[in-house]
């Protein structure tokens, strides 16, 4: 019954739109959208305290769309969402922290194609900057909207740097390396006490995807994996030499004693690490958990010889979409549209969570109140050389395959860098082929 009404409503809206009434072109949509009242649910990976901000913004949505009640479930993750869709009891709106799974959601229809709704409401995807626009659609199908982005840069402990005589953060990799070595402190038994820069693979945010942009490294060539390139060889070579300088086992011990990334004992927040690659959200965490830490932010140093990339970084972000099992797709779309394109909503989310808002309009919103240190990340977001990882059908499997090799190379289990990279390319290509097996070309 509801679906019939919903379809009628859709037709009505389409007719109205075609006749020029209603259906505004502004991205701040009004509540003239005619839909039935409903109870819908949204799943988000946020947990407190960020969840509180999220719920507040959702409450704003409910106020401007009376009749639609939204149940917010926090603490979910991609696996849960995927499992729920497959299990048949997914929410009406789902948010994912990683845009990687777009490649799995879109072609299979797990998240519905939003283009009809967008056309109907006059939302054009040019409201999104290029990178978020790209990582929320796959092969032309837009099944998600970006909602808040993450960019990565360098955090540095001003106190520790000053003690070692440094007044400004490093701008190139060789500067970073030199400073890291000088800032490292060992205790009397030789154990690492303070690490200048921790190069350990997969520790906290140390994944190849985040380092790649500083070397101009890319992932694919057309639709084949292309990691066997000088750029990646240089990046990994640098990482390995720094790890060897520290001593692999010493770093393992240091990591085992360091706190959890998202705990108050975070190694950077407690001064155990002087310089650190992290995302823009860390600014909010620092304010909450380590207000007395004197720190600064800057774009991540670039490789020597790649000066042109200065100021760039890696970007990825959350996406929101509507699982195909939703019984209230129209209402769900309103929520998706609100969270994805409403400048006020995005500004409010950004202020509370300190993530980057994802429409060009919201970037200029007067409501935006970035904390000190946050501006760096807005700049990185706006930099033309900032890149993201390409969306593929295998989701994040390509990154995990690469990380697996990187881990082994850094520990010394594998020594052939060139051969290893070529091998990873082969593996990823095979995985891509496997994922498309049996499909009509």
């Amino acid at each position: 019954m509801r679906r019939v009404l919903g379809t009628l409503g859709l037709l009505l809206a389409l007719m109205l739109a075609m006749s020029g009434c209603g259906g505004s072109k502004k991205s701040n949509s009004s509540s003239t959208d005619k839909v039935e009242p409903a109870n819908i649910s949204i799943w988000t990976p946020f947990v407190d305290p960020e969840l509180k901000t999220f719920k507040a913004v959702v409450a704003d949505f409910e106020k401007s769309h009376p009749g639609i009640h939204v149940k917010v479930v926090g603490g979910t993750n991609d696996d849960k969402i995927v499992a729920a869709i497959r299990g048949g009891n997914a929410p009406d709106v789902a948010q994912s922290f990683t845009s990687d799974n777009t490649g799995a959601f879109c072609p299979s229809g797990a998240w519905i194609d939003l283009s009809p709704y967008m056309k109907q409401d006059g939302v054009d995807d040019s409201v999104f900057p290029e990178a978020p626009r790209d990582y929320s659609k796959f092969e032309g199908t837009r099944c998600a909207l970006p909602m808040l982005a993450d960019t990565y840069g360098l955090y540095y402990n001003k106190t520790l740097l000053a003690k070692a005589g440094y007044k400004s953060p490093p701008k190139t990799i060789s500067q970073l390396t030199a400073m890291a070595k000088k800032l490292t402190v060992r205790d009397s038994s030789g154990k690492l006490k303070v690490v200048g820069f921790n190069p350990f693979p997969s520790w906290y945010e140390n994944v190849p995807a985040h380092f790649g942009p500083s070397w101009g490294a890319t992932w694919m060539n057309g639709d084949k994996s292309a990691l066997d390139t000088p750029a990646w060889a240089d990046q990994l070579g640098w990482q390995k030499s720094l790890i060897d300088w520290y001593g692999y086992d010493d770093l393992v011990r240091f990591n085992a004693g360091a706190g959890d990334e998202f705990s108050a004992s975070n190694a950077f927040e407690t001064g155990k690490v002087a310089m650190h690659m992290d995302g823009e959200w860390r600014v909010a965490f620092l304010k909450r958990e380590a207000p007395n830490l004197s720190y600064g932010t800057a774009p991540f140093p670039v490789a020597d010889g790649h000066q042109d990339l200065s100021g760039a970084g890696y970007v990825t972000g959350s996406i929101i979409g509507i699982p195909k099992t939703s019984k209230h797709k129209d209402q769900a779309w309103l929520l998706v549209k609100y969270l994805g394109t409403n400048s006020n909503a995005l500004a409010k989310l950004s202020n509370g969570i300190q993530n980057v808002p994802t429409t060009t309009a919201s970037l200029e919103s007067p409501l935006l109140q970035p904390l000190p240190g946050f501006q760096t990340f807005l700049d990185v977001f706006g930099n033309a050389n900032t890149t993201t990882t390409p969306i593929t059908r295998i989701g994040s499997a390509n990154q995990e395959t690469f990380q697996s090799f990187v881990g082994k190379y850094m520990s010394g289990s594998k020594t052939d860098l060139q051969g290893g990279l070529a091998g990873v390319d082969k593996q990823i290509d095979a995985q891509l082929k496997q994922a498309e097996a049996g499909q009509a070309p």
Partner: protein
Amino acid sequence: MSVEAAPARATLVRRRPPVAVRRRRFLVAVANHSLLIAAAAIFLLPFVFIVLTSLMTNEQALSPKLWPDPFAWHNYVEVFSKAPLWRYALNTLIYGGLATLGLLLSSIPVAYALARLRWRGSNAALLITLVAMMLPPQVTIVPVYVLWAKLHLVGSLWPLIFPNFLGDAFSIFLLRQFFLTIPEEYLDAARVDGCGEFRILTTVVLRLAKPAIAAVALFSFLFCFNDFFGPLLYTGENSQHWTLSLGLSQFRSLYQVQWNLVMAATLIVMAPVILLFFLAQRAFVEGVTLTGVKG
């Protein structure tokens, strides 16, 4: 020490062995005991450390200090506020209780049919049961998961509970082995009295098989309590239905790692089982022996 104090046999005349032999035997016994004590100490050590850590503050747990100072008794209270352990416990109870009930209801008749009723396919059925026992569960999980997904029951505990109402290979086998030991005379006497097989089962057999049934029930409940893979697969996405095992494993990633609390939670999860053991020691040991010696 004096093995030879055993009842002397008419054909054998024993004298006390010479002092040297007795002394050697004594030393061997001492060595044996010392080894046992050492091994026991090593076995207890992990428990000791876990208890000690559970009483430390978070900073201490991350440091090389071995003895809590001060004793943070409130950890045990804090654990409950950090994770809904009561809900997990309730879920575990529901899962274990219902599954065990279903298992008993369904496995007892089957075991009886395999043990005491003679019919043509019974050997084949037994063989199939054995095969089912040995099958790694991973072989069947994909289709079974798909089945539950289509029924929209993924996210609940039903995929874990319901199969037990249709028998469990291991319990069937165990009970069958036990039923085999019931003397035929008891059953024949009941038959002569005009009892149908069902009455025989409920009146005669059940009464005689109480220890075996208790052991099977105990094992089944323990299995459910300890089960990680099942809840992970079917309730992983829905934390309302997590069991204690699953909840404990996630205790560290949802909330920051606080090892002192994790250890306290670990002990809290271990406690019911250990308590159960002390209360039902005999059933435990008997049950375990049933599986092995008769196996």
